């Protein structure tokens, strides 16, 4: 979902800034993952509207949530959330509620995803959670969550997890056959125990891309819990073709990211304009090709080359989509508990 394929030359950026400042001097601040928005899309938008886009990046959902929950979050206009966070913050009036009348292009969104962000944003990209692995280091490709949760001794200290309180619970819950949105504390305890047992194998809970990208990084990651599409970024970053993505046989979860406008944004109209622009089929196609993540916008295929449209990793078959669990909104207590579980796993990991 985060791609760095777009490489824009420095003189061009300088030119664009200059242009934007001259024409409108309106700037939208977006808080998002790095490389999760096509520069071409941004450029086109700026060219068309004179509105400039500034991106501020976070590297974990938790960081983002904490930032938004404190005062510092008020300086953003648009924020990228996962579907659950969007609804949590929306309920607490942090976000501006939208609908088709405000953002007409919402009509382009596939029915499956239409309600995904509630009315607190637009569906942006969706994807699966799976395992990325370095084929050069992992001789037999993992095909079960067990391979990640109880890896072979050779991979001790070379397994990376995710710093997201919901995503990190996906492998144990699905492996145990539980619903990922379970409210049963005993089921969560079971999942927690599995993760606690996995601790000795875990290299870290940072996002694998952040980890691999960090200069002077010592961790030699063999496999990681990751999002679909991360294998491309990893191959780019490492300059190899070794990184593979696999969805374990027990199944996975479909996630959905949302773009939301903050309640206190002073540039709500410009933000609405940008979100509407993103849902334009042609723009969505361009963004999808650049980022190489699945878009919830219908009818983008006609703007894409055939090899892209034939990629079932990008255009997931309906059968898979129908059979796979999705995140649902869960109780506050459950959220708090999941957050504490992740916090304590991290503490334990640091202590080991």
């Amino acid at each position, binding site marked *: 979902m985060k791609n760095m394929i777009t490489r824009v030359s420095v003189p061009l950026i300088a030119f664009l800034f200059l242009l934007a400042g001259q024409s409108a001097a309106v700037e939208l601040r977006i808080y998002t993952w790095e490389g999760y928005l096509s520069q071409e899309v941004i450029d086109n938008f700026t060219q068309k509207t004179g509105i400039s886009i500034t991106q501020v990046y976070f590297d974990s959902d938790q960081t983002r*949530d*904490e930032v938004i*929950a*404190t*005062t510092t979050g008020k300086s953003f206009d648009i924020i990228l959330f996962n579907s659950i966070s969007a609804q*949590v*913050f929306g*309920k*607490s009036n942090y976000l501006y509620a939208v609908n088709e009348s405000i953002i007409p292009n919402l009509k382009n969104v596939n029915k499956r995803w239409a309600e995904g962000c509630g009315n607190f944003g637009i569906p942006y990209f969706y994807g699966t959670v799976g395992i990325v692995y370095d084929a050069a280091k992992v001789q037999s490709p993992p095909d079960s969550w067990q391979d990640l949760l109880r890896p072979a001794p050779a991979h001790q200290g070379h397994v990376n997890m995710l710093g997201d309180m919901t995503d990190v619970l996906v492998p144990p819950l699905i492996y145990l056959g539980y619903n990922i949105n379970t409210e049963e*504390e005993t089921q969560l*305890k079971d999942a*927690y125990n599995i993760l606690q047992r996995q601790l000795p194998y875990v290299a870290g809970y940072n996002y694998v891309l952040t980890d691999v990208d960090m200069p002077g990084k010592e961790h030699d990651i063999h496999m990681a819990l990751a999002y679909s599409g991360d294998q491309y970024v990893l191959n780019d970053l490492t300059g190899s073709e070794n990184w593979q993505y696999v969805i374990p046989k027990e199944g996975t979860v479909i996630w959905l990211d949302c773009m939301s406008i903050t309640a206190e944004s002073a540039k709500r109209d410009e933000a609405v304009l940008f979100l509407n622009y993103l849902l334009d089929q042609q723009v969505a196609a361009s963004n999808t090709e650049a980022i190489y993540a699945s878009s919830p916008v219908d009818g983008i295929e006609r703007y894409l080359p055939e090899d892209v449209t034939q990629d079932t990793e990008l255009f997931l078959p309906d059968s898979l989509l129908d059979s796979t669990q999705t995140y649902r909104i869960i109780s*506050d*207590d459950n*959220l*708090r*508990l999941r*957050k*504490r*579980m992740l*916090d*304590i796993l991290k*503490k*334990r990991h640091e202590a080991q």
Partner: protein
Amino acid sequence: MKLNKRLPYVIIPVLFTSFLITAIGLYVLERRSVYALTMSSLEKEATELSGSLIAYTRFIDGTLTLLLQSDALRRYTDTADEYLKSLAFDAALDELVGSIEGLTTTHFSVMFMQMDKVDYYYQSGLDPFAEPSHIIKQWSLEHCRNRQPDGRQFFTDLERLTILRIIDRRTLKPANRFEAENVLAITVSVNPTDFIKRRDQLIEGERKISFSDKNNTSTLPQETLHSRRAIPGFGVLTVEVPKKSVERELRSVLIKLVVAFLMLTGISNVVLQLLLKRYVTGPIEHLEYQIRNIDIEKENALVLYESDDEIGSLSSSFIKLYDQINQSYQKTKDLAEKDTLTKLYNRRVFNLTLQGLINRAGRAKDQMVALLYIDIDNFKFVNDNYGHSIGDMVLQAFALRLHEVIRSSDFVFNQHSGMTPARLAGDEFSVIIYGYTKESVPRMVAKRMLDICKDGFVCDEGTFPITLSIGVAAYPEDGKTVDELVVKADSAMYQAKKSGKNTVSYYSAELLEQARYQQQLEVEIKRGDTTEFELYYMPIVDSSTQKVNGFEVLLRWFSKKLNCYVPPAEFVPMAESLGCYRPIDMWVINEAFSKVQELSERYGENVHVSINISAAEMGDAGFVEELPKLIDKHRIDPHRITIELTETFYQDYTEKSLAQLELIHQAGFRLAIDDFGSGFTSIIQLVDFPIDVVKIDRAFIVKSLANNKLNVLRSLVSFCHEQSLQVVAEGIETREDFEKMQQAGCDFVQGYYFCKPMPLDRLYEEYKG
């Protein structure tokens, strides 16, 4: 009592008393200081514990203050969403927990309650599923209900220090109206971990630690020592220790003291004893041991204990004294044991030594002891000819030689063997050889001794014609006792003397037999049984007519007891020495006289009878008086009786015996000198003695004939004829001898050529005269 044994009795009471006093003093001091120390450590511990608790309460107060002033709380109260409340607070609290310095805590929790509903709960630690304590929840609710905005409590069961503030969620100030929807009860709980650890340590150390949340100052029982500290707002902390445990500590002190006391007493005792033994009693004991074990007979030198103390000087004084005593003892001993002249052992020591060696050899079995008796022959000659002082010098020189022989002995001797010489009497010496194993040893030693005088005894004073007679007797073969050995060595020595000069003779069975024979002979002689006697008659023939002139009467004794003829040469000297010759002589004379008549009738009127009479009789006047009576009794002419004087007479005749001889002659008896030319006979006697007949010894005749010196014999015969003495030649065995005697002019002859001596009845048959 020995000094060493006395030492403990001296040392122990002193040590015991002094250490006991010290130990009691120490215990009293220790007791006082234990109490003082316990009190002061109680105070210290109470201060420490209360200080620790207070630090925790201050930390909680500070946390609460921080929370109440923080934006986080403000946002919290503004937010409705539980998750966002968590987001807002958890991070802040995590940070707070992370920043706690100087205090450790295993539990830190913050709880927000709205009446009985938990609004928010944070707990540090590694359990994501932790739940707030029910007790604290209840306690918080009570405060809300009782409208108490502040609360402080030490939940001792939970081990949590908790402070409660009830605020109005709108103002974040202490609540005053307590409206249920606006009241927020904030509790901060901490586990006072440092305090708990320290408290548990102290409890293990027998401290009793209690916490009372009321400021009750109820008096504690008298049997505890205690210290109290107030924890403001919480209660009172009491640290106690039961007197019993102090007493127990004191008991252990007491036990240690007793042990130390006993050990010190014991060790000091041992050390003191050792030191005293080493430096005081030891040397004394050593000295005492040496003195006790002094064997004045042995030359074991006393070892001087060299030290500059009294014992050293005692030791050296004693050694001086001992040396003096020893010297004078040695002198006395020498006087008592040694012969002053030769420095050899005297007879007494010789006897003792021999006894000792016999005893030892008797135990050792395979050891032999030989006794050598040495007699110097001819020593009387040395004394007589050179004087006694030279004689003494010769004896000294001889003793030295004897020593040399012994010293130079290279016979196989070990430390248990050796030789001891002794001087038994004037010229009698003895050597004891002991411990040897080869039988030849005494022989070889004797041989070397004989070598001393092989060619006369040579010494500084000159050469002396002395020889040695050595008799040897050995233990155990020849005798088992000292006396036996001495007797046997002595008899062997006499045997040696008899068998010639400078010889050695060994005591043997023959010697024993001879001695026994001699003894029996003695007995038989003393018994004087004349019935066993018989007279043999040997004819004396006139050399010119060859007719019998007379008979020599010879006594023959067949002893039934000894079952043999005893030759007169054996029993006559013995009878003389025993003094029992008289009855024998009388029997012979009587018997001979009684046959004179018969002989006359057979062989002619003028037949003579010659009788040998003991020389001893000559000195006895009684004998001379006896003779005429016998003559009368048998009515014979004394003229026809010739009394032959035996050899022994000549050896030491006196004026008196010569006078007796004269008397016999005057009584009419003829007197004859027997065995002339042998032994002690002398030509003087032919002149001096009142004799009528000379009987020339056969040895003299044989020698004269062998050397063809008949003229000597003829001169002797004519000399006798000059003196009016008739001459009888004895031992004529051949006709040739007889003719020579005729030529020599002998008047009469006798011998086997004519007739052997035989009893009268046979004589009558075989010899017709």
